């Protein structure tokens, strides 16, 4: 972990000294600001604020924008209005995952927000697929994306911005102003808690970050990825390598009832095939490396995709890719030397599911 590379975020001057940076793809982001325990606790029990610097923000505009997006994105965006957003995979023709993007409907096109640090590949893919038909603009440098997550994030939004926005329906977008600055506000998230995102100019984001960190706990990328894993929200950089969409368990992020999209044939073939499946597991004290064998009585039945130490479970939490006849919850398997148990998702029940907005 290096602290010498230049952080991607333009807000990093406002980060605390204790911030630990790390590379995520082509970005250098805050992995944590202080103690991960506290940041994680904010996500699951209070409210956390994230600076999603390193998120590629790419605008597709022009009269053919919707047609192009409809072809490039795995999900159906034909009726995505300027008030809605959704999450979709972007695939190569062979079905491999380019990235998972949040698609924001805009009046004159769409805005794609990809995974942190995954901008170069996404931009290259979009340009090669569509640059001749629409305008593709990389707005990453001029815009900032902040996020709030937590069972009480709605309260923070209410205090900071507007109580009415906190109760927006899931995946809604509103163009709003905050202290005289134009912002785009969305109700969406990735930890299954109440989640909100704000897209603002880099200057406005500085003010917003300063105010937001008074109301919510700033949390880094480590805590975010942990919380995403706990609710089985795909983390592309950890899960997509060497697997197709069905093996990843991300079939829900494409829509194969759609007429056509890049990679559709490959996804259809994958659905038809008896492929390995991804299943969550917990157990053991050590965190196994990706690729660690999963065995039963010494017989290899799969391998670890990605594992971390779960603060909520107090043990290792991971994903494994397993032979289809063993890809089910409630089984005891062996990972390395440790006995683990396979799980049903979500692996941690979000408090937001039982916390009403008042």
């Amino acid at each position, binding site marked *: 972990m290096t602290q010498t590379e230049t952080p991607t975020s333009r807000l990093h001057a406002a980060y605390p000294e204790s911030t630990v940076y790390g590379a995520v793809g082509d970005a250098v982001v805050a992995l944590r600001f202080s103690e991960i325990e506290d940041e994680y606790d904010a996500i699951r029990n209070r409210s956390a604020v994230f600076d999603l610097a390193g998120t590629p923000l790419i605008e597709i505009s022009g009269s053919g924008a919707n047609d192009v997006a409809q072809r490039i994105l795995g999900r*159906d965006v*034909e*009726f*995505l*209005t*300027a*008030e809605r957003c959704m999450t979709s995979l972007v695939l190569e023709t062979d079905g491999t995952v380019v990235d998972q993007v949040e698609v924001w409907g805009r*009046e004159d096109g769409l805005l794609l927000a990809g995974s942190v640090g995954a901008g170069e590949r996404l931009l290259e893919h979009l340009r090669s697929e569509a640059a001749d038909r629409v305008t593709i603009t990389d707005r990453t440098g001029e815009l900032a994306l902040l996020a709030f997550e937590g069972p009480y994030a709605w309260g923070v939004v209410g205090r900071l911005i507007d*109580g*009415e*926005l906190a*109760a*927006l*329906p899931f995946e809604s977008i509103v*163009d709003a102003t905050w202290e005289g600055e134009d912002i785009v506000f969305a109700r969406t998230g990735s930890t299954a808690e109440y989640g909100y995102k704000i897209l603002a100019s880099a200057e406005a984001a500085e003010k917003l970050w300063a105010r937001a960190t008074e109301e919510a706990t700033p949390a880094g990328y480590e805590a975010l990825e942990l919380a995403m894993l706990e609710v089985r929200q795909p983390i592309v950089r950890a899960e997509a390598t060497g697997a197709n969409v069905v093996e990843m368990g991300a079939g829900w992020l494409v*829509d194969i*009832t759609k007429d056509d999209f890049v990679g559709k044939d490959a996804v259809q073939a994958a659905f038809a095939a008896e492929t390995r499946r991804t299943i969550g597991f917990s157990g053991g004290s050590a965190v196994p490396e990706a690729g660690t064998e999963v065995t039963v009585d010494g017989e290899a039945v799969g391998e670890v995709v990605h594992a971390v130490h779960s603060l909520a479970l107090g043990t290792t939490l991971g994903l494994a890719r397993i032979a289809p006849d063993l890809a089910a919850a409630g089984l005891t398997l062996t990972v390395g030397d440790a006995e683990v148990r396979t799980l049903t998702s979500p692996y941690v029940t979000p408090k937001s599911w039982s916390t*009403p*907005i*008042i």
Partner: protein
Amino acid sequence: MVLRPVVITGVGVICAAGRDADEFWRSLVAGESGISAVRDERFAAFEARFAGQVPDAWIDDQLPVAERELDRTAKLALVAARQSVTHAGLGDTPAERFGLVLGKCQATPAGDGAYQPMHATADTVAARISAAGPRILVSTACAAGGNAVGLARDKILTGEADVVLAGGVDPLLFGTYAGFAGLQALSAGPCAPYSRSEGLNLGEGAAFVVVEPLDAALARGAQPLAEVAGYGLSADAYHATAPDPTGRGGTSAVRRALVDAGLTADDVDYVNGHGTGTPANDAMEKKVMRTVFGERAASVPTSSIKSFIGHTLGAAGAVEAVASVLALRNGTAPPTIGFSDEDAATATLDFVPNAPRELDMDVVVSNNYAFGGNNASLVLRKPGPARDFEPLPEAEVVVTGLGPVLGLGVGVDELTAALAEGRTAAGGHPSLEGRTFAPRSVWRHMNRLSRTAIAASRLAWDDAGLKLGRAGLENVGVVFATAAGSIESTAGFDESVLANPNKPAVLSFSNVVLNATGGAVCQTLGLRGVTTTICNGNASASVALDCAVEAVRCGKADVVLVVAADEVAGGSGSVCLVVESAAHSAARGGVPYARVRGSTHASVIGAGEQQLIEHGIGALNARSADLVVGSGAHVGDESERAAVTATMPGAQLAGSAAVTGDLRSVTGALDLALGALAIRDGAVPDAVRREPAAGVGEVSVVGVAPVSTAVVLGSSPGSVRGATLLGAV
């Protein structure tokens, strides 16, 4: 612009808290609830057993013996209607100048699982009080009663009537009870709006107000009780049954009502809230209060009389309008009952807990929020002396888009081709295979009726070439016209309740309300403007067109979608017309089909339907129209055929029923569309005029002479007769 002041001069009400207005008011100020355990043993099937019921004796004691055999809906309505007429001291209003607007949510069972036409209750009441003027059945679910009072004001402003009786009615029906229970919306005990908010109680009742111009009321020596200063409608465009939690739709209804009344939020002294007692409603309503009143929110008393009588559905808005009139008259805000001491101490707004409040009030707002995301807000104020006013401005209104979705064809091109080839298709279902008109997650919640209506709306929208940004969509209205709503959902729901009342098909239930499809159109297209639902049988579309034109004239919308949809045995369909102010169309380069030059509606009491039609054609100066589009000439409407023969002997007669069979409201809308098509594009089938067939017959296409004017007859035989004159732009 100061419009003619319109006032309420009489009120009538019957509900669980009283058999008339006096008893009702006494109960309210005494804090005495009318909610009790349901007497009907069948309701023992449910865990929740409280409701606001009207004792049978309260009804029958107020009716002549001959009328005691009527159905409960009609009886409740008659009792309240007569009370209000008597209260207003109406004497010699000419029948044809006396209108009726009735709000009603539930179709009235006719035995054997069938239902009366939605408008039958209005017909029954109108016949007995001799109201032969405009007759509208509005069915915006739980907002219908308030909506009706607003529409009545419009009818006075347009000059179509001198007096309009406006109200709402709904009885307690077992199926509806099962549906609400299935939605888990019922409170186990008496409801507690704004405090515990554990669910609602259903109720039953009826209420009416007599609406007339202030000057006319004063001239006849009547006592104006309250001025109907304005009203506002809006669509949530959010969900079939749940209110938009942000309160956005509710807020815009209140704001529109205040604008209509020429008032601001600061002028409001008291709010009679919707206050059903469900957590979703009450939370949303608090947001509306905070958004509309801002800092003042906590100091604007707001109460829910549903705490006394339960949720009376289509009657609710009318009962609450009566309560608001009485509150104004008595200078007292009725309380919201059901508050514990702790609830009262911790309430964040002033809900007038448990005890009435003397309050000097000038302006009262009454709000209703309904299934389908329909919101209605009514502004009442203390009546002043007569004042100068200006007539409602004439606005040029044009039809700029058509969206036919029929067994015969989908879209204008397919329809025109079918007409050109002389094809017919009696009924049948439109084919929407292979086409999507909405996001999948929305589409799959839609029943057949909503899907056809959404398809029609999208096609009409595209046909009109409309491209509106978010702000524009906010003000696009939708007037939905249907004779019977979704037969599919109604049958599916009824079947599920019959099988097991505790396992109702809730998705079907959410689509049983007549306005569900209108709400679905709003939700899918993101339209949040003025919205209502008209159920006047085959005349629904022409009445709906009137409402759309009025919305444009009153400056409440520049664009309104009139969407008709119905199902019949073996067929279904929908037709949408985009109605737009000529100025708006011209500014965006729209190419209108036709201009709406005028329309008139009259209602049947007894015989003489032919004369009504003739009178309508005469009133529009339509005798020399180039084309008559007859609504029923081809399905055996003798009165219409005779009226056309008598008044317009040389005219060409067409009619869509000859081509598609009778599709209820859709036939009316298609007739309007055919008139519009003939004027712009010169294509109409010429159905044989002097040999009316009993159904779909041979259709010959003739090279129609250029059509510059077309009169379109809208009819709901036995109920409403209308005529609309379309002309070249």
